[in-house]
């Protein structure tokens, strides 16, 4: 090794504390870069390969019920390549004793021919036997989360009828890479499963012989998605179509896409901050080092080392830091990437999801680290190169100190000698001082920025669960129900308050902008679900008109005051088109924590048809898991409500949180209730009057035909 390189190696060792500190900052940049880019690539590659292999569709459309023959007519639309129809049906599952009921989304599976689109990948077992109607394939995550195995038996309530099911296969499909139960905030594999059932069996179970509820199709290359969607909508309108949508609005695809975007944002935001900070650190450390090595630099120049050799020497110091950082960063990035991937494996169901870092990513990270350290070294290198060998032999002239304005202030404040030294030092090297301040400020910013994630998600959970969603249980019907259902629910002992809501999938259009979303209607005096604004205040719904979340209003370019027009609500009642209706949108200042209407529609958009939109009725639960039926008076279990109380019940969902204690209300009859989902602390809540369903007047939507 050359003597000068030996000096470099020993300098690195002597300054190992500082070197390591800078390397760690730089390694943080490399690690996040490698992590986010690596995971991004792994996820994109896996997704694309899986989509291609399993023929993930381009356009999806849901409808109440259409004859299977509709697929032939859709296939004739120009630009459509392949079409496939299927049935999808939500079901309630009885899990083994002592467990709250779970939900499943049951998909039909063509038993006669291989599926064209959204192909199921069998992970274990076999496909259902057409001759045995109760056989199903269940998704891997649900099976694992519930400790089930092939051959497991479950009772399910499908379309209001109880039916025993046997799991004969375990599988995955590209349209359920991500799945979340309607209304849930985060996926829960143990409480929501995706099932596949033989086509004939599901037709029989749901009274839909020869009918379908969903279409999936792929497009020819270059076909216009918007055109095809328009034509599909026209075809499906008579069958309660809720509007076709592309991959961008497909819940699984959209969540995955969103994740990829977040990873991309992470790549763009976090590493640069670390890079800039380490540039400053290198600048400062190397600047100091060169100042103390002035005579040494002069000496080496006197010996005949060229300027370039000396510049290169100090650049190598910076590059050595970058090298250490790249090694540390790659290790940390790979390790975190593995962790992140296994986290993804919980949320995203891929046949394989392997984290691999491509060498190009590491080379990229190394280049960034080298560039940032090199940039920091530039100033010092220039100073070293500029030193003339003769000047470098003499000690540096004492710096010129002057009493600046700050110092004069300090003098008045009676600063000590040391205080003066500090002030003068700061004022003597203003650029260095400013850079130090800037670097520390950036690090603090990074700290705050990352810590606020925790706070904001906590605040979001708090406002969503504790402040906005106050009901204990939500019951969803297939058909909208009237006041009778409200009364029946109110009769159940332990039920304190029942409030109706309704959600309508719509496409809101303002000018040239449009958004697929859902309008949520509720009584103006509703208290079981609240709308909270950015400042935490509760908003009351306007007596008429529509309240938009700020985000949605921005997306649509709608300002609060003017009247805007709402065009073409999809899937109107029967064969009808919707007339335009004027909507006023007053200031809706909902923080993103309140699920913006747009998000909501993604979550359960395909559950509600416009004409036959489901109503949600919120109610509080009984203390015991037993409910008395108002009619027969038979004792039945909560999980049997769907079967016994309302044959067309779609879903019962327990909220994780109860009413807040001590809600003031007239006609109080205090009752002790516990939550049905978790055995949480018991609460005192109050009894309230049930508003008649006819009170839903907060939105005026005129439907013609």
């Amino acid at each position, binding site marked *: 090794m050359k003597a000068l390189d030996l000096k470099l190696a020993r300098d690195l060792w002597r300054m190992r504390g500082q070197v390591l500190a800078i390397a760690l900052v730089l390694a943080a940049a490399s690690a996040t870069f490698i992590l986010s880019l690596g995971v991004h690539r792994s996820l994109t590659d896996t997704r694309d390969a899986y989509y291609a292999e399993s023929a993930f569709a381009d356009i999806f459309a849901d409808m109440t019920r259409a004859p299977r023959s509709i697929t032939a007519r859709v296939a004739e639309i120009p630009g459509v390549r392949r079409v496939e129809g299927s049935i999808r049906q939500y079901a309630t599952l009885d899990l083994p004793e002592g467990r709250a009921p779970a939900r499943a989304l049951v998909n039909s599976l063509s038993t006669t021919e291989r599926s064209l689109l959204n192909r199921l990948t069998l992970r274990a077992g076999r496909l259902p036997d057409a001759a045995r109607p109760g056989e199903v394939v269940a998704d891997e995550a649900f099976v694992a989360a519930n400790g089930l195995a092939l051959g497991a038996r479950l009772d399910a309530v499908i379309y209001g009828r109880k039916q025993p099911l046997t799991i004969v296969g375990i599988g995955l499909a590209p349209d359920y890479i991500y799945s979340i139960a309607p209304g849930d905030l985060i996926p829960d594999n143990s409480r929501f499963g995706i099932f596949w059932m033989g086509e004939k069996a599901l037709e029989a179970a749901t009274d839909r012989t020869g009918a379908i509820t969903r279409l999936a199709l792929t497009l020819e290359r270059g076909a216009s998605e918007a055109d095809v969607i328009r034509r599909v909508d026209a075809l499906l309108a008579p069958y309660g179509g809720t509007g076709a949508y592309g991959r961008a609005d497909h819940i699984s695809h959209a969540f995955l896409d969103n994740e990829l975007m977040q990873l991309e944002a992470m790549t763009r935001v976090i590493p640069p901050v670390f890079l800039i900070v380490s540039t400053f650190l290198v600048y400062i450390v190397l600047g100091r080092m060169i100042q103390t090595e002035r005579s040494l630099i002069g000496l080496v120049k006197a010996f005949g080392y060229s*300027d370039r050799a000396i510049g290169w020497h100090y650049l190598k110091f910076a590059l050595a830091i970058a090298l250490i950082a790249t090694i540390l960063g790659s290790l940390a990035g790979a390790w975190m990437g593995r962790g992140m991937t296994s986290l993804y494996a919980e949320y995203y169901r891929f046949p394989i999801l392997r984290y691999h870092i491509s060498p190009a990513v590491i080379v990229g990270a190394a280049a960034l680290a080298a560039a940032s350290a090199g940039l920091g070294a530039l100033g010092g290198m220039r100073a070293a190169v500029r030193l003339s060998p003769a000047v470098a032999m003499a000690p540096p002239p004492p710096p010129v100190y002057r009493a600046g304005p700050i110092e004069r202030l300090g003098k008045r404040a009676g600063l000590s000698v040391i205080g003066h030294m500090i002030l003068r030092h700061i004022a003597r090297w203003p650029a260095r001082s400013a850079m130090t301040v800037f670097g520390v400020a950036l690090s603090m910013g990074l700290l705050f920025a990352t810590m606020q994630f925790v706070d904001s998600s906590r605040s979001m959970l708090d406002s969503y669960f504790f402040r906005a969603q106050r009901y204990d249980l939500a019951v969803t019907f297939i058909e909208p129900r009237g006041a009778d259902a409200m009364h029946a629910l109110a009769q159940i002992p332990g039920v304190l308050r029942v409030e109706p809501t309704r959600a309508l999938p719509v496409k809101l259009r303002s000018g040239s902008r449009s958004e697929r979303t859902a309008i949520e209607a509720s009584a103006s005096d509703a208290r079981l679900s609240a709308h909270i604004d950015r400042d935490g205040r509760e908003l009351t719904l306007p007596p008429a008109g529509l309240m938009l979340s700020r985000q949605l209003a921005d997306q649509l370019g709608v300002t609060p005051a003017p009247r805007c027009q709402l065009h073409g609500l999809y899937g109107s009642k029967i064969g009808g088109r919707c007339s335009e209706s004027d909507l006023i949108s007053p200031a809706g200042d909902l923080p993103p924590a309140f699920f913006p209407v747009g998000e909501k529609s993604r979550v359960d958009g395909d559950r509600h048809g416009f004409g036959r939109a489901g109503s949600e009725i919120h109610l509080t639960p009984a203390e015991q898991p037993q409910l008395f039926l108002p009619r027969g008076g038979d004792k039945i279990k909560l999980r049997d409500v769907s079967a016994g109380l309302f044959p067309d019940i779609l879903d019962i969902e327990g909220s994780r949180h109860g009413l807040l204690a001590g809600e003031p209300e007239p006609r109080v009859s205090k009752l002790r209730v516990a939550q049905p989902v978790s055995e949480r602390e018991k609460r005192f809540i109050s009894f309230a009057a049930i508003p008649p369903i006819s009170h839903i007047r907060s939105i005026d939507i005129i439907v013609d035909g």
Partner: protein
Amino acid sequence: MNGAVSDGAPAFRCSGLAKIYRTGETEVQALRGVDLVIPAGEILVLLGPSGSGKSTLLNIIGGLDRPSSGTLLYRDLDLTAMDDRELTRFRRADVGFIFQFYNLIPSLTAEENVRLVTDIAERPMNAAEALEMVGLADRSDHYPAQLSGGEQQRVAVARAIAKRPGVLLCDEPTGALDSRTGIRVLETLAEANRTLGTTVVLITHNIGIAAMAHRVFHFLDGRIARVEVNAAPIDPSGVSW
């Protein structure tokens, strides 16, 4: 180009050499026209009061600095016409420097300090060989902090002679040393002059050292006031401190 010849031909020739330092408003005339011939293979001593311009001259003839005016030749090379890169080459190939404060790199051992020079020289001697010449072969693994001042200066001498330079420029090499160690350093310089034929230019405030020189230049106020030729230079061991 390097290598010493003791043919009596001049190593350096300069005439009208002037150097003006400008710092802000003030100007300092460090050299006011120096005419000088330095024969190759001799030992020369520069004497003179502080501030008379000795170091300035040494820096200029060593290619560390440039004169403000005048001509300067090293053998047949015109140093005033050289650009920075050529001056660097000249220093690398032909000049060995020794300074008052040793200037060893503290993080390198004695041998590595010598290698700092042999790494880039054209026909260097072995680092161990150079240390042998100054009698420090057994201390080659020691760091500067483990050596005495005299030993450090001898390492500096070894470092300067290791490249077999044509000329050794020494700015008060014994200025920080006591008489015994000082003489030891002077002996190594004389030895290099004798065995390698290196021209030695030596600045000192110690008039006794002049006795070992072939020629003595007396500096005064940026000029050479007087040149003494010494027909019989004595051995450094006889130098009276």
